[in-house]
């Protein structure tokens, strides 16, 4: 069996089997948050893990996806589901516009450009109150899918529905990312990650590939923002905040930015940790910082790949 199928099976097994251990609906809520974050982080894997580019403003795309679900139904009369797709298209287009000039350059320009973009989006969401209703946030209409399921006899509570729905989207997202990994594009991306000059000499269009990775990862972030807004039924500009961008990158790096499964575990750990550590709430940031630092020092490839390597080493 190929690594791709293992990853997908593990993810699907987690989504399906975990509920057997859930004592209450609250665990479904945490689970669905993990999947939503996992989806955004899968996008980061494509951008950072495959193509070796860093974005510090991915929450900006999450913000676009989230606010699309709030605004498009009001102003354009779109169904919230279509609004999420519109958000993804807009995010992809913005990523393309920004990425096209910036990704022709070598170095850290994308990080700086996206940093600016993220802050810009969150400022627009907070300040253009006539459109977004400002920093206090705005309601998001119901997706209606849960009601539709109920009509055909599948009765799920809201947290349960969002758990399985986000889980499904995550598995689909992982499937796309893994297919990309094994495609010629994916191999070319990893080649340019290894050495941009070498990749260029063998005829890889470096700028175009990086742009592709950036646009795809923006769409992932946008969809995760939409999922979050739809399940919360309410969204504030915090979703596009700088800390959210950092969180995404941290999750990817912690779990292992080069592997979809690793990134998922990063998302799972950083989403669950604050829930387990409510007693130490005041020290949460310190704990996160510490986990991050230890990880960087001792497990530079991220948690999952490092652990797997250690296990494999013992087998020999």
């Amino acid at each position, binding site marked *: 069996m190929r690594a791709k199928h293992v990853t997908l099976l593990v993810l699907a097994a987690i989504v399906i089997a975990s509920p057997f251990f859930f*004592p*209450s*609906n*609250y*665990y479904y*809520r*945490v689970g669905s*948050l993990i999947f939503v974050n996992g989806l955004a982080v899968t996008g980061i894997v494509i951008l950072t893990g495959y193509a070796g580019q860093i974005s510090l403003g991915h929450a900006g795309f999450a913000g676009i996806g989230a606010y699309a679900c709030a605004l498009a139904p009001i102003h354009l009369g779109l169904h919230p589901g279509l609004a999420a797709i519109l958000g993804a298209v807009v995010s992809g287009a913005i990523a393309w516009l920004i990425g096209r000039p910036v990704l022709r350059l070598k170095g850290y320009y994308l990080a700086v450009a996206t940093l600016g973009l993220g802050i810009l989006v969150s400022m627009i969401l*907070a*300040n253009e*109150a006539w459109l977004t209703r*400002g*920093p*206090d*946030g705005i*309601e998001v209409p119901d997706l209606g899918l849960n009601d539709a399921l109920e009509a055909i006899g599948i009765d799920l*509570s*809201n*947290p349960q529905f969002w758990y399985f729905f986000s889980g499904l989207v995550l598995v689909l997202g992982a499937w796309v990312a893994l297919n990309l990994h094994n495609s010629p594009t994916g191999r070319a991306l990893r080649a340019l990650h290894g050495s941009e000059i070498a990749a260029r000499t063998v005829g890889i269009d470096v700028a175009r590939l990086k742009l592709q990775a950036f646009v795809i990862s923006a769409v992932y972030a946008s969809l995760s923002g939409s999922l*979050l807004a739809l399940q*919360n*039924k*309410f*969204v*504030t500009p*915090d*979703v596009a905040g700088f800390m959210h961008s950092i969180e995404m990158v941290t999750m990817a790096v912690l779990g292992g930015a080069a592997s979809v499964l690793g990134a998922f575990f990063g998302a799972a750990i950083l989403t669950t940790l*604050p*829930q*387990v*550590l*409510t*007693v130490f*709430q*005041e020290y*949460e940031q310190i704990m996160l910082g510490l986990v991050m630092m230890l990880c960087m020092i001792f497990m530079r490839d991220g948690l999952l790949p490092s652990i797997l390597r250690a296990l494999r080493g013992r087998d020999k």
Partner: protein
Amino acid sequence: MKTLTAFATLAALGLTTAAQADIRIGATVSETGPAAFLGDPEAKTLKMMVEKLNAAGGINGEMIALTLYDDGGDPNKARTFATRLVEDDEVQAIIGGTTTGTTMSIVPVVEDAEIPFISLAGAIEIIDPVKEWVFKTPHTDRMACQKIFEDMKAQGITKIGMISGTGGFGASMREQCLEVVGDYGIEVLADESYGPTDADMTPQLTNIKNTAGIEAVLNADFGQGPSVVTRNYQQLAVGLPLYQSHGVASKGFIDLAGAEATEGVRLPGTALLVGDLLAGDDPQKPVVQAYIDEYQAAYGEAPSTFGGYAHDAFAILADALARAGSTDPEDIRDAIEQTSGLAGTTGVVTMTPEDHLGFDLSAFQMLEIQNGNWTLVQ
């Protein structure tokens, strides 16, 4: 395997809080994060009041367990904690939502689970339109605007300049003020804004100063912004009456802006600030005094208006629990809605099915700062 079991036990311990008391109340407030100066006194107040009530024998002989979470002002976290309170801690009522954003994210959860919820946030949209399970204790920002405009009208002021923060509080209040200002025959000639962390508002105030015909200035914001505005206002010698919002109604504002700059500043505030100035037969006077004394004794500092909101929320809930004589969320909700004549720090609360706030403009006191102290404007 042993370590795995140990981990599982640890996780189980961390994820489930054993709430074996008779009455379980949940709260999620912003003890840390950008709204900490609101959430911190709220959390302290709730802890103090639960302790006191339990020491006095609880409600109808039943002890109260408070499960308190800190959402850090993040609406997403607030929603997760609300879900946790409802589903995992199985509370019978929730207090919280320090900011409008966190409150509005909690609302769908409590409506879904049918658990009564008393919010500590200001915006009018929390209770208008009325939501079956949602109540709140602070004045709405619209009421603050109306109180200020009422006072302006009494002074014969008809043309004003506004300067507002772009944060949640300022943006929402600005919008509400612009909506009701026409009712008082007052015109807004200048409408300036500043970011929540700006350190100098001289340019905006200069614009206002240079606008001909302005007779007074209204600053809609809370936090550090109003202190800066007030100081700049004095430095520029604008010389017109300055009105602040209820958001700055704490001693900290006078300390930050200085007694000299705050001289003559007017704002709507709660009875909590002027406890000793209230008339002897005022029903709020004993409540306010008791709260100030207890808070002072417990934490060594004066309580703020925001702690007062939590005080009132808990008082309303305790009163409802005592009357309901049941811990069924539906009975508690009905009892909250029947709250009548309950004196709190913010006002005398009488809820109805159409009014989940329970008091009107008269609950606000118009205050003026003189020599670094609050005085009542008659």
